[in-house]
């Protein structure tokens, strides 16, 4: 029962994601300033994703003495994290836009906490490995 419910909501999210233009058809157009604020939030998340991708390149290029396997792992984690961050940015933007049009509360999310913890753990790991001089 719970599983079908979860599948249905996931399907709805994917449909919304694939045709976000339909959002325009429901509710009323919010104040343009709110839409612009939502757009800036989207761009801030996109920059966060770009920063993670840039961090992936940086790990690969500027830590040449790090163990090969560790370096590839960190780089791939950062690149995947950046891509996920960008995908999540557009998903959150669409959901906020829809909530504003319907006059509902804005969606809450666990993603920022997960991202903060992930980046924190990764940063500490890189600092410790560099300080220990874990080379080759």
């Amino acid at each position: 029962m719970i599983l079908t419910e979860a599948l249905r909501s996931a399907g709805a999210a994917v449909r919304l994601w694939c045709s976000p233009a339909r959002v325009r058809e429901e509710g009323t157009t919010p104040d343009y300033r709110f839409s612009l604020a939502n757009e800036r939030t989207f761009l801030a998340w996109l920059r966060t994703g770009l920063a993670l991708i840039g961090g992936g390149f940086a790990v690969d290029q500027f830590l040449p003495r790090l163990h090969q396997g560790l370096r590839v792992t960190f780089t791939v984690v950062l690149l995947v994290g950046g891509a996920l961050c960008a995908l999540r940015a557009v998903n959150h933007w669409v959901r906020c836009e829809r909530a504003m049009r319907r006059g509902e509360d804005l969606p809450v999310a666990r993603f920022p906490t997960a991202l903060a913890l992930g980046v924190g753990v990764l940063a500490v790991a890189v600092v410790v490995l560099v300080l220990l001089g874990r080379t080759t």
Partner: protein
Amino acid sequence: MADHTPPDTGSSPRPAPDRDPGLQPERTRLAWRRTTLSATAVAVLAARQLLRSAAPGAAEVALTVLTGLLWTGFVALAHRRMRAMATGRPPGLSARTALLLVGCTAALALCGAVILVRPGH
């Protein structure tokens, strides 16, 4: 909502009526500019990685061209949106633009992964 119109002193010209006193379009335009700068930094790092190769081959050239195309697409989309911000009441961001931008970003990340695992690296 509070009225943000400054008191009329009689001599100073009043702002144009379609000009948002919170400068929301300007702030959004600058947010777009920051985003293009972030994308540029990522593209430069990708190009640096590729051009440092000891013996650049066809794969390196193709990946450099692809990165350049993705960056160009990103900046062109952002530029079009920034021009829309010049109007007093800009229309909403189109979902197509948002999806294309995210597509460019994800493709840059994918490019990075390919650069990383390509043979001879």
